[in-house]
């Protein structure tokens, strides 16, 4: 991708986002009391200023893309990925792991969730040391638990199944 097309894309996105903020998001999700005296003091003032600036930056990006003559691609651009769809699958898998972590933390407890997440990630990254990865997956969360819970006195979530001392 070249700088020109990147800026065109970002510019269009940013301008649309600014419009979305002004027309929908700010009026619906920012609340201002009815008795605000001066407009500069209103809770709405700053979000609108920012939305305006976002619009300006968006337009500037578009203008920059349209006026720049050259269209050379970035030098360090990653060319066609050799694996086809596999990277996208892995990104999706990582996203699923993260969602599962959020689901598991309050239910399974932080230590068990972390062990599973560690192992899952290590295999997702196709580690060359599977045994070491498994050992680490068990040891690292336990060590961190011991440190955070017993040295730092943090209430690490324990979950409902197996409680650690």
């Amino acid at each position, binding site marked *: 991708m070249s700088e020109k097309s990147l800026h065109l894309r970002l510019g269009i996105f940013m301008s649309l986002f600014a419009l979305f903020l002004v027309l929908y998001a700010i009026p619906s999700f920012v609340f201002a009391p009815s*008795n605000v005296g001066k407009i500069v003091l209103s809770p709405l003032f700053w979000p609108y200023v920012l939305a305006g600036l976002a619009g300006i930056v968006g337009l500037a990006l578009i203008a920059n893309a349209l006026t720049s003559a050259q269209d050379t691609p970035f030098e360090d651009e990653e060319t066609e990925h050799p694996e086809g769809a596999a990277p996208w699958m892995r990104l999706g898998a990582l996203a699923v792991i993260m969602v599962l972590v959020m689901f598991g933390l309050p239910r399974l407890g932080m230590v068990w969730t972390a062990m599973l997440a560690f192992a899952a990630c290590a295999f997702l990254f196709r580690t060359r040391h599977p045994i070491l990865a498994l050992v680490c997956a068990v040891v690292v969360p336990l060590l961190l638990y011991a440190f955070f*819970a017993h040295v730092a*006195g943090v*209430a690490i979530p324990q979950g409902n199944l197996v409680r650690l001392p």
Partner: protein
Amino acid sequence: MKLRTLGSVLALGVGLIAGTAMAEYPERPINMIIPYGAGGATDISARTIAEPLGTAVGQALVMANVTGAGGATGSVAVQNANPDGYTMLFARVGSHSVNPAMKATLPYTLDDFRFVTVYEINPVACAVRPDSGIDSMEDLVAKVAEGGVSYSSSGVGSLLHLAGAMVLSEFGVEDPLTQATHIPQQGGGAAATAVLNGTATFICTNSSALASFVANGQLKPLMVTTAEPVVGFDAPTANDLGKPALNKLVGWTGIAGPDGLPDDVAAKWGEWMAAATQDETFRTTMEARGSVIELMDPETANAFILEQYNTFKALVDQLGMRIEG
């Protein structure tokens, strides 16, 4: 209506079962949530009592600061916790009487909690800069009439916010919201600094937050809201000035659990607190910071907080300070 009755019956049932099942409460460490940041008045108070309290409980107390939104984030965490006595909250005047009185949008009410104790009272003092030309509350009120008076607070819905308005209103200022300007700051330290550097005219806050400035002659106290004088504050009490109604305006720290907390758990907390507050180190540390140790049992604590809440609520409605939206 029926659903609610059913719900409360169920809750009662669960509470009873939990009560019998937990004959040996506490059998594991108890999570104590502090809804304010490290180093603040609530935090120091909580960590000071944790020492003797832990001994009385016989189990570890795990202190956890859950900060945000003027104490609301931490309070909600306890509101939604299991009412099994293993998640308790250090409730504070800001989170549990000023906030509920002022904020319509608050995600909890006083009914969502069961208070097991209030153990500390903090007198409130009002102070100005010594070179402000204000020597007494009359001077301040006269100045308000001239205009241009402002007061600082640690944020909307904090004790300081309400205190400034309440004091002015008691001293006969008709409409303190428009006659004096409220300048909120981020946190109590910044609020005191705002008076020091002349951003705001006066501040009303816990005497402990002002003690060092008063001792150093950087701020001059105008009054304290308790009936008794406060050590180190050379200023008249509210009763001296004929405003005993201001006695209600004090800070406090207490401990609360979620609403469904079983009776025997509450009773146990009553005993533990009675033992913990006898601790000599705890008393001297807290009194050195200007707190008054006053232990209330669960019933007295609930009544005390409700009464303060109602006073504040009436004032908020009268002045139109309620925050909607």
